[in-house]
């Protein structure tokens, strides 16, 4: 025994890990394989039985991995660049073309920074707070329909779910502010709580008009009801609702001029004062993803979601059935690259004496790839409505993201009491007025 202990102590840490880990992995792997082999059939049946759950989980994973981080990167870069241009600065222009990789580098920096935990904080809460904030923000993305058939889940209470999860956001903020044992954080948290409570109400009420018109809370069907030209959008039927929703959305996303929670001139960084490293990065990401979500919501509710602003001639019935080609398909797939390469490369070889045949072929091959990709994309764009929808949706959303950044670049910050007063004295009555007006109109005019 002592010999074993002595041997164990002579091992390096990696060696110990391997020594223990490899057998464990083998055993567990074997067990899993056997288990799957035994349970395969019922498992498949179960998954097949409730596809919605599968779709939900997959969509969640996809959104977290694929959607949020790149989106946040793009929004951050947009903010850096746009505000810089409004300040007559250049903004980031060193990393990548036009500094487009700046936010990526920011992310790396944040990752590589020390994850510091100050003395006196409530460690578990302090650690969980960024996760809570980030997750609640990401969860809101699940029900946002980006294109026909391209959404995480289509609840029939989608809007309700949105506001519920979005409201959970403030819980994370409160955890952060309370746990970090710092007065700035505390003040920022209390502001955040008060603000989100005050602005949830006009936010929700301003949408009631839309719900009345649509007769449903499912975002998907709200969008589909706005199909047609841009005259069919809710923005025309609900201008007041749009205004209220926009203002309340600014407050919900904690953006200037209503960013009370981290008013960096007053409370140093608000609830995030004590955070550093990737924990701060989570707050950062959450904020910008939030901006994206809110803009997407504005688009979905008032600007027709993925619908094109004018009657787009689609779906084009492009009767292109690969199966019809039969054996020709094989030839096509087999010969197209060769022929395309030669055909596209030939002119270079003929026109320039300095280009050898090999170089010409390489150029031709590259060009062919470009052409092929372009062709496939065009085909998809014309024949798959989701591609068009996605393009329109993203485009509209980023218009509103730009508006948010634009406001941040322009406006000073309002004071807390003014903020509250505005919410309760102006937005709330206006929202109620909007509801009554809409209801009356529906009753009088009818659908």
């Amino acid at each position, binding site marked *: 025994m002592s010999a074993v202990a002595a041997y164990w102590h002579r091992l390096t840490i990696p060696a110990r890990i391997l020594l223990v880990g490899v057998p464990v992995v083998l055993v567990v792997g074997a067990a899993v394989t056997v288990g799957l082999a035994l349970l395969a059939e019922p498992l498949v049946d179960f998954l097949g039985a409730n596809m919605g759950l599968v779709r939900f989980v997959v969509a969640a994973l996809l959104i977290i991995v694929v959607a949020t981080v790149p989106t946040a990167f793009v929004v951050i870069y947009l903010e850096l660049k746009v505000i810089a241009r409004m*300040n007559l600065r250049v903004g980031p222009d060193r990393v990548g073309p036009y500094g487009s990789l700046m936010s990526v580098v920011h992310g790396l920096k944040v990752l590589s920074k020390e994850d510091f935990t100050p003395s006196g904080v409530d460690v578990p809460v302090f650690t969980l707070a960024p996760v809570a904030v980030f997750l609640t923000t990401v969860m809101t993305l699940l029900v946002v329909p980006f294109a026909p058939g391209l959404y995480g889940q289509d609840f029939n209470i989608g809007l309700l779910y949105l506001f519920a999860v979005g409201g959970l956001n403030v819980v994370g903020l409160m955890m952060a502010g309370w746990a970090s044992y710092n007065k700035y954080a505390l003040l920022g948290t209390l502001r955040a709580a008060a603000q989100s409570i005050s602005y949830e109400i006009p936010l929700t009420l301003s949408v009631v008009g839309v719900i009345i018109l649509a007769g449903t809370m499912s975002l998907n069907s709200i969008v589909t009801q706005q199909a047609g030209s841009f005259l069919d959008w809710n923005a025309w039927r609900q201008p007041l609702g749009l205004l209220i929703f926009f203002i309340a959305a600014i407050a919900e996303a904690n953006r200037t001029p209503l960013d009370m929670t981290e008013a960096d001139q007053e409370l140093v960084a608000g609830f995030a004062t004590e955070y550093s490293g990737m924990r701060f990065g989570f707050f950062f990401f959450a904020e910008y993803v939030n901006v994206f979500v809110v803009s997407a919501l504005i688009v979905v509710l008032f600007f027709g979601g993925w619908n094109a602003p004018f009657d787009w001639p689609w779906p084009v019935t492009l009767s292109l059935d690969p199966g019809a080609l039969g054996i020709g398909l094989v030839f096509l797939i087999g010969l197209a690259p060769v022929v395309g390469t030669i055909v596209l490369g030939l002119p270079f070889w003929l026109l320039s004496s300095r280009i050898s045949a090999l170089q010409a072929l390489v150029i031709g091959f590259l060009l062919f790839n470009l052409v092929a990709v372009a062709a496939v994309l065009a085909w998809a764009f014309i024949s798959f409505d989701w591609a068009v929808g996605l393009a329109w949706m993203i485009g509209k959303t980023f218009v509103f993201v730009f508006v948010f950044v634009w406001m941040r*670049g*322009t*406006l000073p910050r309002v004071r807390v009491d003014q903020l509250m007063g505005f919410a309760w004295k102006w937005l709330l009555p206006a929202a109620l007025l909007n509801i009554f007006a809409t209801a009356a109109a529906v009753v009088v005019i009818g659908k």
Partner: protein
Amino acid sequence: MSRVPGMGIARGMAFTLRRFFQPAETVRYPEVTPEIAPRFRGRLQLLYDEHGTLKCETCFQCAQACPIECIDMGGRDTKDRYALHWGAPETYAERREESALRRSGREVPDPVYERFEPVDVAAVDRILEAHDHDPRRMLTILQEVQAEFGRLPVAALKRISFRTGAWYAMVYGTATYYRTFRFERPVRSVAVCRCTDCLLAGGGRLAEGLAGGLRAELGRRTPDGRIAYEWLPTHVPGAAAPLVALDGEPQPEVTVRNATAWAQALTGEHPALRTTR
């Protein structure tokens, strides 16, 4: 504020949007260097003369004139005898731990008397007392110190600057400015004549005696390097043979017999210069 609520905000937004499309005023520094006014005083530079040697002779006059003591220099002194420093102690490795000691409040061994060849500062203090530690009488103080030691030991200069409160650069600048001050010990020359009649008169044995007394070969220096033992180029006209010259002065009293004793007496001169450890 305009009457329409939100009008100012809208106007401001329009304004920033216009700015958004204006060209940026940024100067991309490494690629584009802004032209700096010819009057700009900001650049510190060391000038080289036409032979490519540094013009700065480390006299510290600039450093002491700098009101905010931002000039911070170190180097060899003009005759390349020892290293000089001007500036914050932290700048120089050999003084870092010293200032660290001082900041920690402990007793600091003052390096002034250790780095250079030590002399007995009592003599310096006596002179300073006589002059009331007045830096404005620096010239006379230095003259008296030189009269005392036959030269200006660096340790003495440090002591003077430490006691009078004059910057070391002032003291050192004054000392290097006047030709009468010297930092080395005076090298005295003991010369024997090698002309025929001196040799006939026993110059050879005289030379050996001197060599024994000075503990130096002919043409070499004494071990402490203060006396050069050489031969006269020409016989001093009218001097008796064999001829020994001290600093070119014929020494008729030196004979073959007392040569060694005289040389030994010569080597032991200037008691003040004897190092006191």
